[in-house]
């Protein structure tokens, strides 16, 4: 712990948000700005027979109307990850047009954009655009999409598969081990489709400056540099150095604002056509139809055990929906972000996962809080609890029996899994022990027995998860199909007065980077936090950046900043040595000054900074200035882990689940700001509870969405959840300078199976062994009465 590191420092971003003075994209108004509205398909699959914009063009205030015929962005939106078929055939990668041409492939796909002086005028005119469609049969279920004769999403290929993929040990070997196992537990279910639902809808403003020949794109994105690169190099073919992408305040992302969306590119194109700024802000209905969704795996799994309850083999087959087009990270989510976590925290010696990933007549799936890892964790944590019940073991006991033993990654090597990864450091027993203590597990079991005797349905569910954050290094992810590096950039600019501007390529949309990054920079420099300012969300200010997702900001972005801080101190020492007339090796740096060891001769950080910019008396041959930018490419992922425990009571009359307690003991490595880490865990847990109990995107047989508003899509509200009880253990990451692992997704990864395990536990004496998520009262009641 330092002066600031490890302390619950209050957030500096809060004042503006609390006063209503945040700067979200939709809050920005530019001179001469126009507004826009989209004409979107009411069908999931249809031929476009005719588009007539004549009447719409004559409406008041209309500036322009564009359709695919106008030639916008002819290359389409690219995918950022390539996963080829097992037989080596290249991934099928359809062109994703900015506006649909000839054919519609998902509900809500845009057919035309209307630009007008006001939003009302744009919406009025959009309603006057006439489109004739010839509806076609649709397929929205990933397994049905692979049936022979299923409607094709893209006619150019003989079936709907985009790719298939497998990972782990030889399938025949795994099957043989299952055949000779003492006990085999099986599960079949759907990890349902979810809508991320950041409360701020997507919003974009594109502004083309005719005189400078430059574009500015204001966008609600998690990764501004990535958007600029994709937009310039792939979609529009415009020069990257003439485009500035700004994402100031962004109201939540959860993965849904990674994707480079068609609207971002189209508005950029439109702005040049009309020579004026143009804004579009999604409404919630559009968000349900067009924001990338998460999950949607159909799963069939078998896990084999020996007579002592040790796992001997695990075999899973999945169908994972991709949607009509490939989003930026879609192919990585059900593969490298998913199958690589199938080891979990267990010593399973044989693992095989087979994935078939088809196109479906739905909006694209992309990363959603945890991205592939919640799906893996759900499977492992449900099936091991189900196995425990079947083998008359306690769910905690079966876990202790199978845990990978503790290793710190320094004195003991990292743990090599059967599914490609090497875990950095872990102590899985410790978090489960602590979790059980927090609950008072044995007393709870007694209470549960008592409750059952009184007709009450009380249950407890355990989940012991691991996840992989900050995926890297670039060379490895490149060999796995990533079309980008996964390093991060951090720049430290010391101003002449010793004030410090820090620039990061990561992006804060709730995570509190402006506070946390300042905490460790101030500590490392031995200066006051008030003298450090964190800048993000502006492609003009920092060389590059991969953005914020996968709980990578601190582990990867923080490390890049540390590299620059080290360069500042290294150069500063040269200047200090010169000023102190001492050798560099005789100096030590602490509390913001260089001191000649064993003396009281010192020079402050501020003095050195000023000297760097006013280099009158200066080391010979040394460049003036104190300004460094660094790229950090990690050597490995980081692996946070933890234990989540849910206590539920099920209403025996209605099947409604009441979440009574939720306890989380997480290990996210070293902690910079415990207040923020706890906040991330609490929020993640509740999102995971949402998947367990409430949330599901439902498409009907023809691809209409039945859950397209907050009337139908249920998310956790304040009275659905209790206080989240948190604690932690600390197992530092051995391979990054801050020893941090990442905390953004852990809550959502660990909590879902804990809740479902608890409900099944509450009903186990009634013969209930599994219930399909979300666990609505109807489904629970039916399971109780089956």
């Amino acid at each position, binding site marked *: 712990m330092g002066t600031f590191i490890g302390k619950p420092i209050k957030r500096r971003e809060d004042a503006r948000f609390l006063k209503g003075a*945040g700067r979200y994209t939709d809050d920005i108004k530019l001179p001469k700005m126009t507004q826009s509205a989209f004409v979107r398909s009411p069908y999931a699959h249809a031929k476009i027979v005719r588009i007539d914009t004549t009447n719409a063009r004559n409406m008041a205030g209309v500036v322009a109307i564009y359709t695919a015929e106008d030639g916008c962005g002819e290359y389409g939106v690219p995918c950022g990850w390539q996963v080829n078929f097992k037989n080596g055939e290249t991934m099928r990668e359809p062109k994703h047009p900015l506006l649909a041409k000839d054919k519609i492939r998902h509900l809500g796909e845009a057919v035309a954009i209307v630009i007008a002086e006001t939003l009302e005028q744009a919406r009025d005119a959009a309603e006057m655009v006439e489109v004739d469609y010839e509806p076609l049969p649709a397929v929205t279920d990933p397994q049905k999409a692979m049936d022979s004769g299923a409607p094709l999403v893209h006619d150019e290929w003989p079936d709907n598969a985009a790719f298939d993929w497998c990972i782990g040990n030889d399938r025949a070997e795994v099957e043989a081990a299952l055949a000779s196992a003492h006990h085999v537990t099986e599960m079949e279910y759907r990890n349902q489709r979810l809508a991320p639902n950041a409360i701020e809808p997507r919003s974009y403003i594109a502004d083309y400056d005719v005189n400078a020949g430059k574009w500015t794109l204001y966008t609600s994105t998690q990764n501004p540099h990535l958007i600029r690169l994709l937009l310039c190099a792939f979609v529009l073919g415009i020069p990257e150095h003439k485009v500035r992408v700004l994402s100031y305040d962004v109201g939540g992302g959860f993965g849904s604002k990674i994707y480079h969306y068609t609207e971002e590119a189209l508005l950029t194109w439109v702005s040049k056509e009309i020579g004026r700024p143009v804004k579009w802000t999604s409404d919630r209905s559009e968000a349900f139809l067009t924001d990338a969704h998460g999950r949607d795996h159909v799963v069939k799994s078998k896990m084999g055990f020996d007579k002592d309850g040790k796992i001997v083999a695990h075999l899973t087959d999945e169908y994972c929906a991709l949607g009509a087009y490939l989003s930026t990270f879609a192919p990585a989510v059900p593969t490298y972000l998913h199958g690589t976590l199938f080891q979990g925290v267990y010593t399973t010696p044989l693992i095989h996962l087979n994935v078939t990933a088809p196109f479906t007549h739905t909006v694209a799936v992309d990363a959603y809080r945890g991205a592939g890892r919640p799906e893996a964790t759900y499977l492992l944590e449900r099936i091991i609890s189900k196995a425990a019940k079947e083998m008359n073991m306690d769910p905690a006991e079966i876990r202790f029996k199978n845990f990978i033993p503790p290793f710190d990654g320094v004195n003991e090597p990292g743990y090599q899994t059967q599914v490609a990864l090497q875990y950095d450091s872990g102590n899985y027993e410790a978090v489960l022990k602590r979790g059980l203590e927090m609950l008072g597990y044995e007393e709870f079991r007694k209470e549960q027995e008592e409750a059952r005797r009184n007709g009450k349905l009380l249950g407890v569910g355990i989940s012991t998860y691991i996840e992989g954050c900050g995926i890297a290094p670039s060379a490895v992810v490149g060999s796995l199909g990533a079309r980008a590096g996964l390093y991060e950039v951090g720049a430290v600019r010391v101003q002449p007065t010793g004030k410090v501007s820090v620039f990061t390529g990561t992006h804060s*949309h709730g995570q509190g980077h402006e506070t946390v990054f300042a905490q460790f920079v101030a500590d490392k420099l031995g200066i006051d936090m008030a003298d450090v300012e964190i800048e993000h969300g502006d492609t003009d200010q920092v060389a590059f950046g991969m953005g914020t997702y996968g709980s990578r900001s601190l582990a990867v972005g923080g490390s890049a900043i540390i590299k620059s801080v080290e360069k500042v101190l290294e150069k500063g020492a040269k200047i200090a040595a010169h000023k102190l007339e001492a050798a560099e090796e005789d100096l030590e740096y602490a509390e913001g000054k260089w001191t000649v060891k064993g003396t009281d001769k010192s020079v402050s950080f501020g003095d050195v900074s000023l000297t760097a910019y006013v280099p009158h008396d200066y080391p010979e041959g040394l460049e003036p200035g104190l300004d460094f930018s660094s790229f950090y490419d990690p050597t490995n992922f980081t692996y946070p882990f933890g234990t989540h425990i849910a206590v539920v009571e099920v209403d025996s009359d209605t099947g409604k689940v009441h979440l009574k307690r939720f306890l989380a003991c997480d290990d996210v490595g070293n902690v910079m700001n415990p*207040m923020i880490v706890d906040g991330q865990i609490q929020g993640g847990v509740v999102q995971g509870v949402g998947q367990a109990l409430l949330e599901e995107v439902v498409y009907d047989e023809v691809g209409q969405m039945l859950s397209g508003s907050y009337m139908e899509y249920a998310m956790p509200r304040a009275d659905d959840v209790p206080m989240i009880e948190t604690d932690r253990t600390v197992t530092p990451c051995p391979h990054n300078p801050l020893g941090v692992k990442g905390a953004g997704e852990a809550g959502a990864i660990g909590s879902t199976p804990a809740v479902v395990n608890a409900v099944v536990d509450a009903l186990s004496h009634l013969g209930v062994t599994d219930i399909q998520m979300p666990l609505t009262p109807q489904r629970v009641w039916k399971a109780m009465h089956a």
Partner: protein
Amino acid sequence: MNISITINGKLVTHDIEPRISLSHFLREHLDLTGTHIGCDTSGCGACTVTLDGQAVKSCTVLAVQADGSEVTTIEGMAQGDQMHPIQEAFREHHGLQCGFCTPGMVMTAADILKNNPNPTEEEIRHGLEGNFCRCTGYHNIVKSIQHAAEQMKA
């Protein structure tokens, strides 16, 4: 239509289309962009303001319906640099992350505490059920409101 509304203590007169919602009027016509719009169905609560002392979702109130009324938005909560005790409590207890739902949460909290200065946790949660937060899991929002209640009593 011509309307006159007292917004954050200031009388505002405007000629607007009758179909304009109060939220849209605040944001687009008065540049009071602290009131956020998160949905179309009064489901999310981000647009909550007080209308004649009652918390309302300004996306489902027409601006013309507010004619002659008094409206307080998030911009009217702080007195200069002096934040309202509820705002202070949210900062103190990390009751916000991305900040988008926050104005609606603060306005709803004000309504809860006005009607019930000593709410239980259950009453606070019940009072917040019209407001979505996707970041915090509500934990720290509830704690913030509990803290604000104590501060406002003192």
